């Protein structure tokens, strides 16, 4: 029994291992005969590429565990890139930290509004965050007049910000730290327990007197905060604040969560699963690109992988 349970829990990990082995096997080789996939530069590239979606999907896991969904993460990311770029490039502040704080705080506020509306009106999270996905995108475009705000390549404050926050170590490190914190919060804190209890059975949570509204507001606010943090990294990496950034990021984040074994109906799931899900998507993308697979074909293959990953995990579902 225990062995089967372990295997079941490790299913997404097994899938990841399979894809890594496949990636090694079909990897093109460099001049010296070594496999490009395994080169340190390539492996850290993968980690860097998954970091933004990875960060967003951590809080998305919490949201989905409560039985909700957050479609506004991509728009919030765009708002954050715009704000941090505006503050730095237009000289609203002389401190990088202030610019980041403004962007992340505004993002957290958007998330808190999502959560507040969902908790107060009991409207479906899908509808509420769909509305804010549209509205926040509009806000980002409006404050930037629908223009990209370039972050200088010269020697100004903005350039310093970009140079710092596009470092692989910073980007990957941010993801690692956020992942560790969210993993601990879910597994070890009262709040994490409330998140799972509300998603497992909201009615029972009400009868047990749990703070359902507060828990919901918090998870959406965290989702906003992490989307904002991802937006800061995005701005540095791309040297610009971009009100059109992050389109369809919500879908990638949800895919990572679902591949990681978290149930869309809530109550069951884990941060470790989401991390594995994010890695699966990242390695897959990298493998296909190294082999020059058409990006349209890449999407089709990803579609199959998502369905397969979830189908395999359903096998062990108890009735």
């Amino acid at each position, binding site marked *: 029994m225990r062995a089967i349970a372990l295997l079941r829990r490790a299913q997404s990990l097994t899938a990841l291992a399979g894809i890594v082995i496949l990636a090694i096997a079909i990897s093109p080789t460099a001049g010296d005969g070594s496999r490009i996939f395994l080169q340190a530069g390539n492996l850290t590239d993968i980690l860097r590429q998954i970091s933004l979606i990875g960060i967003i999907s951590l809080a998305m896991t919490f949201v989905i565990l409560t039985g909700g969904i957050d479609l506004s993460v991509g728009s919030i990311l765009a708002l954050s890139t715009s704000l941090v770029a505006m503050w730095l490039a237009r000289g609203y502040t002389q401190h990088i930290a202030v610019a980041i704080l403004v962007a992340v705080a505004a993002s957290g506020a958007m998330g808190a509004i999502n959560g507040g509306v969902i908790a107060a009106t009991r409207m479906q999270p899908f509808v509420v965050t769909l509305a804010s996905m549209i509205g926040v995108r509009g806000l980002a475009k409006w404050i930037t007049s629908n223009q990209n705000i370039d972050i200088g390549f010269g020697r100004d404050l903005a350039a310093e910000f970009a140079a710092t926050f596009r470092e692989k170590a910073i980007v990957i490190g941010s993801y690692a730290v956020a992942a560790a914190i969210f993993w601990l919060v879910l597994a070890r*804190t009262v709040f994490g*327990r409330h998140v*799972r209890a509300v998603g497992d059975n909201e009615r*029972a949570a*009400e*009868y047990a007197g749990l703070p359902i509204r507060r828990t919901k507001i918090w998870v959406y606010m965290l989702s906003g905060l992490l989307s904002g943090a991802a937006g800061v990294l995005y701005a540095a990496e791309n040297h610009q604040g971009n009100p059109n950034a992050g389109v369809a990021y919500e879908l990638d984040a949800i895919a990572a969560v679902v591949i990681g074994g978290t149930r869309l109906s809530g*109550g*069951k799931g884990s941060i470790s699963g989401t991390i594995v899900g994010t890695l699966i998507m990242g390695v897959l993308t990298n493998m296909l690109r190294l082999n020059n697979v058409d990006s349209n074909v890449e999407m089709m293959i990803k579609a199959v992988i998502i369905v397969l990953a979830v189908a395999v995990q359903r096998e062990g579902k108890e009735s």
Partner: protein
Amino acid sequence: MPTGETVRMATVLAAAGISKHYGGVYALKGAHFEVRAGEVHALMGENGAGKSTLARIVAGSTRADSGTIAIDGRAVRIASPVDAQRLGIGIIYQELDLFPSLTAGENIVIGNLHAAGQRMEAFCRPYLDQVGLECEVRRPVSSLPIGQRQLLAIARALSMSARIILMDEPTSSLSEDAAERLFGLIRDLKRSGFAIVYVSHKMDEIFRLADRATVLRDGATVGTVEMPSTSAEELIHMMVGRQLAVTARRERTAADPILMVRGLTTTMLKDVSFELRHGEVLGIAGLVGSGRSELGAALYGLDRIVSGSIEARAAIGLVPEDRRLQGLMMQMSVLENSTLRVLGRVARFGWLDRRREAAELAPVARDLALNCPSVDAPLNRLSGGNQQKVLLSRWLLARPGVLFLDDPTRGIDVGAKQDIYRMIDELAAGGAGILLVSSELPELLRCSDRILVLRDGRIAARYYARDATQEKIMAAAAFGDFIDGARC
């Protein structure tokens, strides 16, 4: 009319040896009954006696484990509602299976084998006329009052050429006027030769309407009686049966009140007043829908209070009626479920201490004789009785001064029941006040000091447990304060 007589006497439906179990619990054990054309046949029994399950089996919406059903003396197989429709069996569910956003006409023709190729108005109108429902076929069902929906559901059954119509607690949500109208229609249908199976435990209705009644108890048929030659006392006696004498409860000394309820009125409760004392177990009896669960919801603050007051001198805990729906997180572990209300006590600055959690649960689990593979096992691995114990442990850990237990032994095995009775005794001995709702009267008599009987949201009778009998409680629950009880 000689022909009329023959039709009336013919047995149209005969069910025999019907058994059905859910998990380890039997809903029906070899139940049987026979219905004649042109009669209203009541199916009676206490909550959980199996009346509704039997009706659903005949209507094809539930499949029996074993047993035979014959229509006009010919054995038939009813595996689905469509089979039942072909055989001329229609059912009106308590919770009316209509589609609220569709129109009246659409509700009649949907899934109807007889409606194909006909204009909706032409097809529906005769049946709507037959039940006396004057409404546009285009009217959405959601805009109809509940009484008219009931009539629509009957029109629907008639339009499916039903000759045998089952009605499950049809008056449970009807006003008096609407109920009277329904009774008139039932008499008309009976005179036209329809067989009506009327599932209810409301004695007055059954005496007014039924020709015969079959009484079920614990999933088996106790007997069928002719209504003119029986009495309410006999029916009640058949329903509750001869149970073992209940050991007298030890008297509890009068203590200070811990909960005082005055004139409590909500949408479901009317002017409910009582006091609960330290160390007292106050039993709450009543049929389903009498307001017993709503009393718990009101005390716990889940329902809006229209008028009246609740004065509690201690925290109130509530173990809800439906443990899967309202109580437990089925995907979470035993430990996580039990400590859900006391996380503050086992955490420091929001961080959980798993060892302290386990240490909190251990003594309570021992007291309850909780049997689980491990405290980390997910709840869906446990038996119903152990699941219930986990839910109880959640509240035992929270140590409320007043605990409302809503049918805590429903659907669990005898051993687990005994463990729960013992726990109730211990809690009361420790000074807590217990409100105990139960559908099982012997259980109420065994555990309670006093018993309140609710009917239609009001307190119909109050008894000291030592003066109460199952018959008295049942009569008060069905009729109101019909048989005089020793008041308290």
